[in-house]
């Protein structure tokens, strides 16, 4: 058992170094001792907070700005059309996709490729259902008379939720790419970091929706 075991230390700060940390010049060596790709993704997600912070604050500023001077058919605010039960179901689906994503990451960390593929597919399908729900919601709003240019409140709403939808779409594409790589045998356990990095992006999309759902939909 001793021959096949790897002994690692558990530091006080939660960081888990290993006695097998790559040395300078070795393939996986980095100056910080951390994965550069993962650090880059976290930095990117930090900047994404600024993007969505700007979009959410813009929506909050403009959500009630539906001027009386507009024709009556254009005096429709997003909050007048929200279907909370429907959006709640969409939110729940996106939340559960975070569970399937973390199970995919756990699967590849263990070298269980079947579980990885199953959960990657499940995550992509749940993301697709969320997107379908968003398309349905947008279509319903347009048919009710609230298009992108109807008024400034509608523009702010569509810009915010549309940007989020684009992020979900990119996430689904990345998930499907990972699934295709796995099916072609190009996603070995040594590339577990790749799945984890895509997972970070996916979870971020989920946490942003947690904010949007509460701030935009539930708080009047």
């Amino acid at each position, binding site marked *: 058992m001793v021959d*096949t*075991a*790897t*002994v*690692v*230390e*558990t530091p006080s*700060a*939660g960081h*888990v*170094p*290993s006695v*097998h940390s*790559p040395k300078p010049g070795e393939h*996986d060596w980095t100056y*910080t001792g*951390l994965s550069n790709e993962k*650090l880059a993704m*976290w*930095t990117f*997600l*930090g900047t994404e*907070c*600024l993007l969505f*912070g*700007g979009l959410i*604050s813009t929506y*909050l*500023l403009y959500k009630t700005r539906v001027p009386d001077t507009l024709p009556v058919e254009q005096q429709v605010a997003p909050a007048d059309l929200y279907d*909370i*039960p429907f959006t*709640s179901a969409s*939110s*729940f689906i996106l*939340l*559960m996709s*975070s*569970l399937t994503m*973390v*199970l995919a990451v756990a699967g590849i*960390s*263990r*070298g269980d490729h079947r579980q990885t593929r199953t959960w990657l597919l499940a995550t992509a399908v749940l993301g697709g259902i969320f997107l379908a729900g968003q398309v349905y919601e947008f279509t319903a709003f347009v048919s009710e008379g609230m298009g992108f240019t109807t008024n400034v409140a509608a523009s702010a709403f569509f810009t915010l939720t549309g940007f989020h939808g684009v992020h979900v779409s990119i996430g689904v594409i990345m998930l499907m790419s990972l699934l295709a790589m796995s099916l072609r045998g190009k996603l*070995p*356990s*040594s590339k*577990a*970091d790749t799945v984890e990095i895509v*997972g970070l992006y996916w*979870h*971020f999309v*989920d*946490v942003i929706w*947690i*904010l949007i759902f*509460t*701030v935009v939909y*539930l*708080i*009047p």
Partner: protein
Amino acid sequence: MSSDTATTATTADPGAIPGDEAHEAHHPTDASYIKIALVLALITAAEVGTYYVPGLEENTPLLLLVLLPMMVVKFTIVARSFMHLKFDNPLFTRVFLGGLILATIVWLITLATFQFF
């Protein structure tokens, strides 16, 4: 190295990155992830439940008092457990929190500038 500060992990996959054994040993099991998701689902149900409480929609301060903490708890649970900030190097937390705090400050300044409050 005392036994309580050391973890012994076996190498399950020859292709695994060295050090991942330690990474994995400190992560929750699948069952734990499912339990965390159930907690998140319950909080979401409670959030949606506020929509059906008569009179609560008109009482915005009370609604904020109820909804904002639940939102923060959900955000924190996903970031710490599902995004592994709880188990990973603290530098990742600092980088992400840096962006988040900066965004919140910019957000509040923008809203204050336009007299939102």
